């Protein structure tokens, strides 16, 4: 399993970074106002938004090569949560497009969304 690449500093993400966890609950509401709720997923799906700025050309190239290797959201890789350090062995990109913004020398930026796979 491929590993999501780290920056030269060893970091995975930069500020600002965000993450979310998504549950899925089915809610049945009855005429008398009562409800029945049940989960549709065994566990929450995790998702990370990785915003990267001020990358140098080598870091940008590594990210681009990794995205090509994954072929967008088709591939699966391991991702270490930069908030907790927990390694999630089965994740994918959420988008099929990677846009690298070359703003200057050592000023390349990109935004990636990584999501945990289920099954």
């Amino acid at each position: 399993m491929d590993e999501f690449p780290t920056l030269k500093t060893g970091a995975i993400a930069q500020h600002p970074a965000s993450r979310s966890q998504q549950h899925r609950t089915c809610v049945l509401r009855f005429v008398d106002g009562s409800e029945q709720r049940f989960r549709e997923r065994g566990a929450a799906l995790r998702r990370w938004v990785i915003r990267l700025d001020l990358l140098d050309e080598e870091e940008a190239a590594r990210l681009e090569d990794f995205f090509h290797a994954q072929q967008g959201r088709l591939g699966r890789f391991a991702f270490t949560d930069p908030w907790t350090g927990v390694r999630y062995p089965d994740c994918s990109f959420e988008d099929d497009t990677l846009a690298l913004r070359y703003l200057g020398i050592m000023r390349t930026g990109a935004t990636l969304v990584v999501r945990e796979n289920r099954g």
Partner: protein
Amino acid sequence: MKFFPQLVTGTLVQYPLVKRAVYRTIWNAALDGSDDRLGDAGAERLEWELRYEGLSREEQERLAAFHGEMEGRLGAFTFLDPTENLLERSGEPEASVWQKSPLLTLATGIPDPAGGTEAFRLISTGPVEQSLQQVITAPGWFAYCWSVYARSETAARVTLYRRSGTEEHAREFAVGRSWERLVHSGKGESQEVTVWFGVKLRPGTAVELYGMQAEAQPAPSPYRRTKLRGGIYEGARFDEDELMVAAVGPDLHSCTVRIVKAGR
């Protein structure tokens, strides 16, 4: 064969530029969060968004003429990606894309300045100069930067050369014990569409090399290792039928060009 033109400065693009890698995955998500997915290899493409500011009249006319020659999105051309190394298999001198003189001994797996073992040692054992070179399909009249890291246990001299047709530009460098990036850049006049990039060693010379890189620009950028392909994209096209150029002052023009290449 048509090539996206360089500016008067010898560069292809200016900052900022955006490069997009686009794939298509057919995604069937189930309620429990699991999914089935299938890649659509035919939908792969690369896109470049090039923003130009401060173009001279000559430069904007060059871009406009090329867009006209391509008739907007109709015609195909070759685009030399400014974010990539133009050479193929840049870290594999034993690969067949590299043409090696018969009396040049090659040893790979040598420690490199980046902390890996991708450097290689060349020993010239013949009575005459020996060379290692690669040819690319690119205009002989472009400006190029050809660079490689080099070191040698004993004082040695290495020649970097660029050749197109009968025109050759070469520069000899002294190489010492520490890694140093050798850079040879310049613009050619040849009208051929093949360019050779190579290193020549005098008889009896032994050097270690790493990070061979060719770029269509006057100065080197950080080394980017390539595998099966370099940054030369044939079959690229404009992504718009219209090219709008704004005159923002005397001899100052700006425009945005979008280029797309289907497949990789």
